[in-house]
């Protein structure tokens, strides 16, 4: 088929042909075409199927409000469902498929639904499918689900890149029709920072679609003049292919720029789309208006379109849906379509105008006071039946109906912050009311000013006002003489007596459905929408909501504005999720934090694990080790028997200085800190104000006015934040300064009986780190390796004689290598987080699994640490009765009676002989490990009154995995309970 419906003229470039396919069939269009205009030019009317009844569907509109012509574009990971052909820019090689039909668009078996439409009324499913009970999920729902949806995803990963960015401007102008262009000209000349965004690839809006907007010049001529000037202004950013989709607080707008959707694939390393967050001081909504259909019998056949859309196809794209087009309307604007079509040589057999006083139109017959009462044509309209003013019927053959029920201002962005529009009687439509988002104004057709003259003037006037409010002087530009026809409209929503007259084309909501909703008391507009699914399709009711509202108003006897409007919600048009995801996908979902020994660990073949955003070495497999347990057991044993090294840089480190630093720590820790001597470290427990323990760590005192606090890896940010809160908000008079030094220092735990010997080879000889000179819980600023500044702490998480040593991070890699070399003679081993975990469980140290946000100091066995003699966060509320019951959880050790059994973390404890159910729960296991020292699986857990139950046997159940074993409650300190090793 050659382009049988192509007309002369238009804004397409006929010297640039483009080949494309639709459902496997090859076609040709031109640069400047949309997929819709190219299909139309090729005589294709059938483009889709409706959702519920699978009725044949063709184009209704020429823009982003299109409900019918939805297609899948591209294939594989790039397959994009539900693409509106009206906004898909044609490119060479484009391949589109129809969707929601089987086996083909022409012969869709699901169209059988249409035969049963009398049963499938609004909400029918709420009234049936209830018996037998099991059948809903087994039978009915699977059938319904199979039919659900429109287009499909392939499930393959989207291969394209998406960018996100931020723009700032004085004035954001949304829409580049006559209103937006005139505003941009005004603001651009005034020197303001202007962004002009339009969803279309061609700027000009309705000027591109209307032949006679200006009195004495062509629209495109003026557009290029204006764009020429704007392009030359450095303060104006013109953004075609950019949909401003949402209005958010304080002048922030969301916009998506389609950088590469007009190409077969994006260029390498370039984004397919970009999400822009536009920070505007002022915004002007110049989004025009959307035409509304008229509901009449079988008004949904392909070829029945909005009149303005037919006009746009003819004028801009030189395409016509048919060679014979009937116009049906209730307003003067519909006549313009007839005139433009005739000027392009399209036959217009008649204008059917419901107004009894409709004016004549040269070149065609105007049937005043007439209505369309029936249409024919299985896959596209072939004829209509008209009821004339005198009651007689006349059948008119045609390939298309161009209908117009009037124009609705395009309100979306004006209502995103829950503003309610108001009713404008002269155009019979809702217009924005005064409760606009802050900084926003509206002009042109979007404000209900429908003539070109009003658009130009409105745009410029509102731009001047917006800039004046910012203190920028702007003046009105010279604007061309433009048409200023008054809106001549008689409200007309639906032809009475129709059996099936569509309101929502995609979701198949008809006038009858609205009547049924009313009958069943779903009269609130929100009930109407939810009960009938009106306006819930991909077009969000842009062409359907008002018509349904008008029908409901008729039924309730209330005026339309009292009947209400549904709420406009972002996005204005559907936005690709990829654009909202941006670059934060795959491995880049979150930043990755690497430890100072990362490179070295990689060289050792370490297995890494995600700990928050950090990657930490989990264990270091050696040749011959086939199971992670072998590596971990080895690391534990070698550490406990000699010495091991672990990168603990990830622990939070907060530098606390100031004259009142000691007092400050006293306030934020549950235990006392004021009297900690310089050169000493103390374990500290932090409570939330509700008395629950939330973090622990150490504080080392380097000077009277200088501490370094450590936190757990997970809570580093939270603790730092809370300390700032305490400093600025709770004790603002204290002299304290805080800063994080987590990343400034590479810190390693050196643990095991030979740790001192190893460190003595590293630490410069002038520093005595003997047990006497540098006892347990000591800290000092030292130098290592011949003069590098370092910090040494004698603290232990493993229960061994142990130290933590810190150097400036850039030297962390080198220090690790030096220590490994120095430790060769002791058979030093690097250990990862698994071995770290095993050793802390063996030692009975609480960690994240125990500090789970519900456990108090009492639960953790540290109740006595909470000072009652000072003001500290959490001590008052920790005394509440419910947190101090006799059977309160206590941290205990758990050992299987049969040492070959494995203790599951997350298992629940029951009495040895009693019932196994929630009511008899005695506690739960928090952390488990295999202890190579004890040669047994062990665990930590919380048991009711556990401190008094040492030696008791309990039943540990894990019904989730079918486990049920006997365990013994023991001290949590499995190894070295008296701490002799630590102090050795």
């Amino acid at each position, binding site marked *: 088929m050659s382009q049988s419906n192509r007309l002369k003229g238009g804004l397409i470039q006929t010297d640039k042909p483009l080949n494309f396919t639709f459902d496997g069939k090859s076609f040709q269009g031109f640069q400047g075409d949309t997929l819709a205009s190219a299909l139309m030019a090729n005589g294709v009317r059938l483009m889709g199927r409706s*959702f519920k009844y699978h009725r044949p569907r063709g184009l209704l509109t020429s823009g982003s409000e299109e409900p019918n012509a939805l297609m899948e574009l591209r294939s594989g990971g790039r397959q994009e469902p539900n693409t509106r052909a009206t906004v898909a820019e044609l490119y060479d090689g484009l391949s589109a498929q129809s969707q929601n039909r089987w086996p083909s668009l022409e012969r869709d078996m699901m169209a059988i639904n249409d035969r049963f439409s009398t049963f499938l*009324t609004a909400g029918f499913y*709420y*009234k*049936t*499918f*209830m*018996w037998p*009970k099991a059948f809903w*999920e087994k039978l009915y*729902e699977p059938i319904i*689900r199979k039919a659900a*949806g*429109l287009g*499909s*995803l392939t*499930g*393959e990963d989207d291969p394209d890149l998406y960018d*996100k960015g931020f723009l700032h401007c004085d004035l954001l102008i949304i829409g580049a029709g006559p209103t937006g262009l005139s505003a941009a000209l005004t603001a651009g000349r005034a020197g303001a920072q202007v962004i002009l965004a339009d969803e279309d690839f061609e700027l000009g809006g309705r000027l591109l679609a209307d032949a006679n907007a200006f009195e004495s010049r062509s629209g495109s001529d003026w557009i290029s003049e204006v764009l020429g000037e704007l392009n030359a202004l450095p303060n104006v950013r013109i953004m075609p292919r950019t949909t401003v989709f949402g209005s958010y607080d304080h002048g922030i707008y*969301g916009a998506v720029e389609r950088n590469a959707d007009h190409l077969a694939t994006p260029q390498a390393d370039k984004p397919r789309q970009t999400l822009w967050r536009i920070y505007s001081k002022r915004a002007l909504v110049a989004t025009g208006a959307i035409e509304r259909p008229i509901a009449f019998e079988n008004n949904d056949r392909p070829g029945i379109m909005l009149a303005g859309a037919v006009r746009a196809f003819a004028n801009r794209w030189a395409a016509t849906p048919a060679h014979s087009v009937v116009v049906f309307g209730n307003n003067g604007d519909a006549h313009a379509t007839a005139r433009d079509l005739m000027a392009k040589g399209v036959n217009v057999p008649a204008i059917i105008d419901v107004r009894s006083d409709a004016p004549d139109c040269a070149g065609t017959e105007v049937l005043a006071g007439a209505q369309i009462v029936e249409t024919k044509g299985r896959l596209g309209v072939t004829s209509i039946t008209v009821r004339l003013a005198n009651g007689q019927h006349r059948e008119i053959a045609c390939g298309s109906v161009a209908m117009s029920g009037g124009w609705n201002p395009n309100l979306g962005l004006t209502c*995103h912050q829950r503003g309610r529009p108001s009713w404008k009687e002269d155009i019979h439509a809702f217009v924005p009311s005064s409760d606009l988002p802050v900084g926003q104004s509206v002009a042109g057709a979007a404000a209900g000013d429908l003539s070109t003259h009003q658009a130009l003037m409105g745009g410029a006037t509102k731009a001047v006002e917006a800039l004046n409010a910012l203190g920028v002087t702007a003046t009105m530009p010279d604007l061309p003489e433009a048409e200023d026809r008054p809106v001549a409209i008689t409200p007309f929503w639906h032809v009475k007596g129709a059996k099936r007259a569509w309101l929502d084309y995609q979701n198949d909501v008809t006038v009858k459905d609205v009547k*049924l909703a009313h*009958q*069943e*008391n779903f009269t*609130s507009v*929100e009930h109407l929408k939810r009960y009938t699914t009106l306006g819930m399709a991909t077009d969000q009711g842009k062409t359907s909501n008002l018509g349904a509202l008008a029908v409901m108003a008729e039924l309730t006897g209330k005026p339309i504005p009292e009947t209400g409007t549904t709420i406009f*919600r972002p*996005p204005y048009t*559907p936005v*690709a*999720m990829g654009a*909202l*995801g*941006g670059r*934060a*996908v*795959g491995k880049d*979902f*979150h930043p990755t934090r690497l430890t100072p020994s990362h490179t070295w660990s990689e060289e050792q073949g370490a297995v890494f*694990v*995600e700990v928050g955003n950090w990657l930490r070495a989990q264990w270091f497999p050696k040749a011959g080790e086939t199971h992670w347990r072998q590596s971990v057991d080895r690391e534990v044993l070698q550490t406990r028997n000699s010495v091991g090294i672990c990168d603990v840089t990830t622990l939070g480190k907060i530098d606390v200085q100031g004259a009142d630093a000691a007092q400050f720590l006293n306030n934020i820790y549950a235990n006392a800190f004021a009297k900690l001597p310089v050169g000493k470290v103390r374990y500290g427990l932090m409570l939330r104000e509700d*008395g*629950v323990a939330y973090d622990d760590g150490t504080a080392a005192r380097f000077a009277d006015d200088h501490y370094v606090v450590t936190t757990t890896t997970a809570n580093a940010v939270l603790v730092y934040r809370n300390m700032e809160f305490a400093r600025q908000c709770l004790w603002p008079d204290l002299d304290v300064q805080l800063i994080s030094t987590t990343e400034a220092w590479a810190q390693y735990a050196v643990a095991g009986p030979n740790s001192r010997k190893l460190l003595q080879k590293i630490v410069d000889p002038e520093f005595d780190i003997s047990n006497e000179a540098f006892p347990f819980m000591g800290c000092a600023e030292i130098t290592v390796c011949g003069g590098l500044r370092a910090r040494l702490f004698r603290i232990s998480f493993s229960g061994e004689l142990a130290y933590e040593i810190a150097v400036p991070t850039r030297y962390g890699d080198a220090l690790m290598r030096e220590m490994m070399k120095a430790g060769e003679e002791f058979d030093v081993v690097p250990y990862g987080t698994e071995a770290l975990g095993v050793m802390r469980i063996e030692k009975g140290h609480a960690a994240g*699994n125990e500090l*789970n*946000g519900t456990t108090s100091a009492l639960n953790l066995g540290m109740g006595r640490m909470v000072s009652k003699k000072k003001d500290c966060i959490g001590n008052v509320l920790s005394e*509440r009765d*419910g947190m101090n019951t006799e059977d309160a959880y206590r941290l205990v050790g758990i050992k299987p009676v049969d040492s070959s059994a494995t203790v*599951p*973390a*997350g298992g*629940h404890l029951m009495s040895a002989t009693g019932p196994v*159910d*929630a009511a008899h*729960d005695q506690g739960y296991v928090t952390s*488990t490990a295999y202890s190579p020292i004890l040669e047994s699986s062990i665990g930590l857990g919380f048991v009711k009154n556990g401190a008094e139950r040492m030696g008791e046997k309990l039943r540990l159940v894990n*019904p*989730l*995995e079918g486990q049920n074993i006997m365990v013994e409650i023991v001290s949590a300190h499995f190894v070295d309970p008296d701490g002799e090793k630590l102090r050795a």
Partner: protein
Amino acid sequence: MRYSALRLIKEAVTGHKGWTPQWRDVAPQDHYDYVIIGGGGHGLATAYYLAKEFGGARIAVLEKGWIGGGNVGRNTTIIRSNYLLDGNEPFYEFSLKLWEGLEQDLNYNAMVSQRGILNLVHTDAQRDAARRRGNAMILNGSDAELLDTEGVRKLYPFLNFDNARFPIKGGLLHRRGGTVRHDAVAWGYARGADSRGVDIIQNCEVTGFRIENGKVLGVETSRGYIGAKKVGVSVAGSSSRVMAQAGMRLPIESHVLQAFVSEGLKPFIPGVITYGAGHFYCSQSDKGGLVFGGDIDMYNTYAQRGNLPVVEDVIESGMSLIPALGRARLLRSWGGIMDMSMDGSPFIDKTHIEGLYFNGGWCYGGFKATPAAGFCFAHLLKTDRPHETATAYRLDRFMTGHMIDEKGQGAQPNLH
């Protein structure tokens, strides 16, 4: 009128002329035995169970707008009983059991669909926590299965297994969890309550309480004074506002939770999945839309709308879990106001004012609780005793130190 396939056929052939209003619009009477404030899911369910289970009283539901217009009409439709703590799990399991018989009970197809809900785990610690939770669920009579990575892959092959920042290490599967057609829940309860004589009064805003000598006598409304023996407040995001009229301050903040739906897609996601490494959960409706959500917007608000950063956060999470989502489009976003409590758990309790009862603090867990919350609140209103599955939901629990803190976040409502 009873609904059935037969009835549908009969109406179809007679032009659907016989369908009657699903509930009546009535004018308020002067006095009721029970006035329920709030015509959302909870309020309507409360009225329904009061009328059905505890019989014989004069009951009114007062709704300031249109029924079902609050969170029951703007949630992500998930039902589940996968809670950890003793104070919660029996209640939610009771609720799930009520869901399982709801349609037959109400004679209304709310499309209760037990498609399974899968909580993904990404770390060993998460797996430990999932095991503890799964065991608690089973010990409370619910169901749970612990899946490994391969088990997850079988159900959801298109998740990001190979290039993930936070690899999927398994998941806790709760097969009886699923989704429900949310609006239908409100309408079904409304219809059921209405047919048992409950007056559902729309466009009737409560503007004050009449309280004398520590006892509530009735409520002032935009449609005049209405006397009541007992008043139950069940107004979700408006809890603080309404209870302030009775002079009470609550351990509640109001926050907005955004929810999202994609364009309709052919079946893609069979059940409900929640991401353990980002803020994202998702299911697919019977119409084909992906219904998803994530975190709240973090600041106190009564504006039923959110901001872009959370939209991005949720979709970044979604994209990182399901890379194929890039080609699907976001169709609509909306926001509901959540009554976030100080420990993330709700209240069903008497107040210190005689005759005034409170049901609230549901955070974003209110929808799944609808049947049990209605049942238990009705039980409390009728008997003055908490239902056995709702004994922990006391207003004074922060004074006594009996918090029910599933997430372990403490008195920070926006983190629950």
